[in-house]
């Protein structure tokens, strides 16, 4: 009722019409008769005041928009938001015009802001000029017009994808077609490769794999995964029609030879098993594509005088160089010899030791695996390291130790400094293991006196009871080094238990807290569809304690904290486990994470594979 009137300035009609989206208003010759009596009365009343025109326009708008709804209500509802909508539209248009002006050289040097019409006119001129400049792609009216010429698109693709198109015949892997971009990746020219057998360029160990991919009909079984149930479905050829297209799909990885080029190319490739004598280097490619039958008449049959069957099978793939994801260090840039990485269970027992360790500590990995790290720490450092151990289990950050001594195989000590980081399972939020990145501070060569002194001291000290705060040390209790770790681990387990509460959101809001913990009894049946969880190995002593534990003591920062694992740049990094911020992984509480997964599942289109319909593709050879 009260709508209208006040905002009826002379601008109003122009505003509504300015963006051109409203239908042309007929002005005062509005069919006022169409309005319900009540309304008409209002209008006439208001027409005495200013803004009658605007009201007419406004209502007409509303009339044209609302289909039989109560117009009075509509008017009220639309007035405010409508103005907002209009304003937004205008602002957007203005922004676009500004952007346009910024892109057009002719508009650049202007001192004052140009009006809309002028900018548009300049844009027209500019486009005309561009069209002329780029020549045939646009003057050719027969081809379908597109924003980019195909040549341009090709260049863009080349930039975006480190890959090439490859077509090989299935019987002998003859390269029928390979796109130019191969030279960028393998440093071999298109000419060199076309007509050759692909096997000449594949890493010897991958030949069988590729042979397998090429042989289609001979291979009896096609294994598909039914995305709905996750069960493998084995389909015998011929496949049912809906599966036929996915049956033709191929996806595999293989290593192809590339010719040596001095420079940064080498850094990109995965370690290969080529011996030193073999001067070839290989790069790993991901090949995805389809099997197709192509008429042999299109093939270059001059090379072989044999009669080919009328329909030849070939594989059409896109081969893409594997991205050396920046957290994946190429072998050439492994850590320096004075460093090594180990992994321990939360009680300090070694579960993983890198091979470099041997040169530093003298032990082979298998000699230390399963033993507690405390057995190697020097007496004097036990306190400090136990404290750090406790810290790292509770912290999401990297913990740096001071310099400490580590006993080597030969009895001497080497000075190390380490960074420890506890790995928390993103789903369960519990600490699963600790990763330790260790650097040698000074060489393992202590002076003879020191060595002798040290080992002697150790022998004496083991009789003493090191006093470590927080650990139970009753009178007469002999604390063995190894048990320190176990005690600290148990502390953690206790804290998990204490902090667990029904509401603190275990990761599975669908069931009781124990759901996510592994069931202790090992599974005897191994049905394919089984989803039982069996117990872990004995080294995972925390399993038992975890059965009772509910949610971890982690807070909503945990997921964010875990996400602070770096995808790190390689240059200058001594430790591959640098722990800076990963760009962009937002923080979620465990509840939110679970809900996010469910929601995304419900909403996400589970990609059922693409149908390969290539009927209309013209073969480029």
């Amino acid at each position, binding site marked *: 009722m009260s709508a209208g009137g006040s905002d009826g300035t002379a601008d109003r009609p*122009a505003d509504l*019409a300015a963006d051109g989206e409203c239908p042309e208003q007929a002005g*005062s010759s509005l069919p006022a008769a169409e309005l319900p009596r009540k309304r008409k009365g209002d209008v006439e009343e208001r027409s005495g005041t200013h803004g009658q*025109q605007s009201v007419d326009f406004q209502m007409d708008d509303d009339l044209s928009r609302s289909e039989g709804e109560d117009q009075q209500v509509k008017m009220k509802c639309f007035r405010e938001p409508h103005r907002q909508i209009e304003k937004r539209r205008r602002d957007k248009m203005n922004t*676009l015009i500004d952007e346009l002006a910024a892109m*057009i050289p002719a508009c650049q040097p202007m001192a004052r802001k140009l009006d809309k019409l002028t900018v548009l*006119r300049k844009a*027209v*001129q*500019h*486009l005309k000029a561009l069209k002329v*400049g*780029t*020549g045939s*792609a646009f*003057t050719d009216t027969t081809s379908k017009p597109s*924003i*980019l*010429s*195909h040549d341009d698109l090709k*260049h*863009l693709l080349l930039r975006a*994808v480190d890959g090439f198109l490859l077509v090989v015949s299935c019987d002998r892997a003859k390269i029928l077609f390979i796109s130019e971009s191969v030279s960028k990746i393998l440093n071999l020219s298109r000419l060199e490769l076309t007509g050759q057998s692909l096997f000449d360029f594949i890493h010897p160990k991958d030949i069988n*794999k590729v042979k*397998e*991919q090429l042989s289609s009909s001979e291979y009896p079984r096609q*294994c598909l*995964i039914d*995305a*709905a149930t996750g069960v493998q479905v084995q389909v015998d050829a011929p496949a049912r029609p809906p599966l036929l297209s996915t049956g033709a799909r*191929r996806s*595999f*990885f293989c290593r192809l030879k590339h010719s040596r080029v001095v420079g940064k190319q080498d850094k990109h490739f995965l*370690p*290969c098993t080529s011996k030193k004598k073999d001067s070839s280097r290989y790069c790993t490619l991901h090949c*995805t594509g*389809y099997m197709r039958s192509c008429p042999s008449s299109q093939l270059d049959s001059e090379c072989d005088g044999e009669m080919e069957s009328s329909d030849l099978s070939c594989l059409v793939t896109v081969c*893409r160089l594997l991205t*050396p994801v*920046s957290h994946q260090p190429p072998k050439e840039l492994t850590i320096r010899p004075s460093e090594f990485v180990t992994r321990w269970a939360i009680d300090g027992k*070694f579960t*993983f030791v890198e091979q470099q360790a041997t040169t530093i500590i003298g032990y082979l990995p298998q000699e230390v695996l399963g033993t507690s790290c405390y057995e190697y720490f020097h007496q004097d450092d036990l306190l400090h390291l136990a404290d750090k151990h406790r810290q790292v289990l509770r912290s999401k950050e990297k913990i740096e130790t001071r310099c400490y001594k580590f006993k080597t195989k030969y009895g001497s000590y080497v000075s190390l400094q380490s960074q420890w980081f506890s790995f928390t399972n*993103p*789903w369960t939020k519990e600490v699963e293991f600790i990763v330790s990145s260790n650097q040698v501070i000074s060489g393992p060569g202590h002076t003879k006196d020191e060595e002798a002194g040290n080992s002697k001291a150790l022998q004496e000290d083991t009789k003493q009871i090191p006093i470590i705060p927080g650990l139970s040390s009753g009178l007469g209790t002999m604390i063995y080094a190894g048990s320190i770790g176990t005690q600290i681990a148990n502390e953690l387990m206790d804290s998990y238990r204490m902090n667990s509460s029904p509401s603190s959101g275990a990761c599975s809001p669908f*069931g009781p807290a124990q759901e996510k913990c592994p069931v202790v009894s090992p599974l005897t049946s191994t049905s394919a*569809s089984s989803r039982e*969880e069996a117990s*872990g190995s004995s080294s995972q002593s925390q399993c038992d304690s975890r059965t009772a534990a509910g949610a971890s003591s982690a807070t909503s920062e945990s997921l964010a904290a875990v996400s602070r*694992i770096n*995808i790190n740049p390689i240059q200058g990094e001594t430790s*591959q486990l640098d722990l*800076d911020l*990963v760009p962009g992984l937002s923080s979620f509480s465990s509840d939110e994470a679970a809900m996010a*997964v469910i929601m995304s599942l419900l909403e996400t289109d*589970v*990609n059922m*594979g*693409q149908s390969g319909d290539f009927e209309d*593709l013209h073969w*480029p050879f």
Partner: protein
Amino acid sequence: MKADKEKRRMISRDAARRRRRVESEVFAELSRLLPLQQSVQDHLDKPSVIRLTLSYIRMHTLLKGITGKKAEASHAVKCEQVMESGEEWRGCDRGRDDEEKKTDDVEASEETNMFLRILEGFLIVLSTEGDMIYLSDNVSKYMGLTQTELMGHNIFEFTHPCDHEEIRNNLRLTAEVWCGAKRDFVMRIKGALTHRGRSSNLKSATWKVLHCQGRAKVCVAPSSVSCLLLTCQPLPLSHTLLSTHTFTSQHSMDMRFTYCDQRITLLLGYSTEELLGRSIYDLCHTLDTNCLTKNHLNLCLKSQSVSGQYRMLVRGGGYVWVESHSAVIPSVRPSKSRPGAHQPLCILCVTYVLSGVEEPSLQLSLDQTVHRYLR
């Protein structure tokens, strides 16, 4: 008094109408200059015309940098001068004949079409602000929206809000975090497609997970043209596994094995039973923990992921390089021992083995030691 006002209003209305008409004409002219099909041109609304014009100009500038058509730029300037003097310029002398250019173009067209089809993805050029400057026209196959509907819009309007931060970070050109210009990430985008592949309403759009890979292209002048070139591919779940160098596995949400197919025995030496309940993190090289964690997080947050290359330890010693493609799927059946209380979600992984066994005598982990001695 009233008549005066009427008259003034009528004049202003007429003026407004004239302005609008002129404006519409200019818009129409602009849209006709866009290299689009007539049917598309006629139905563009004004903001879209400007958006597409902007895209066109930006792409042109970008491509000049990429293909180095500097000569062409100066040529264009010349043409512009001619234009302004009012003449028409038909064709231009470029030193190559039209016929040659035409066949080149046709060839390029076939190749790029095929490339995009087989790649099963579309190309997208993103500005540093996230504007989708260009999308290859097959985008309609994946998103249900056409190239012209999307070009010029901002990608944040079409992606899942939880992924925005990650996308924003990827858009940054000179972040220290990045090693070189390469980009590789997973994001969720609106897909207005029905299950049968027909376009549907944006309102009923579902989230589609896309794997985006590409690189950043930094332009010095004008710097506003710097952008990200990416291919976006949906991650297919139904893999055809003909290869013996691949195995599938299922995991609970914390990445512990709940199932593994027998091929793993041939490839890595483990029996399927001994893997049940084991965490994948234990089976892999410590240095790859980051890679696995990122993969796991992607799965938890976005439901699909590609892991990149990492090392899996072989039973008894050594390791192999692998890459896993995984997805979170609803598990259908409740577990038998605990009916009614089931994990509704599990992770399905397809793992490709990339290399042979490296350093087979190397014992790196506790598992390998144990197994060695037990043999």
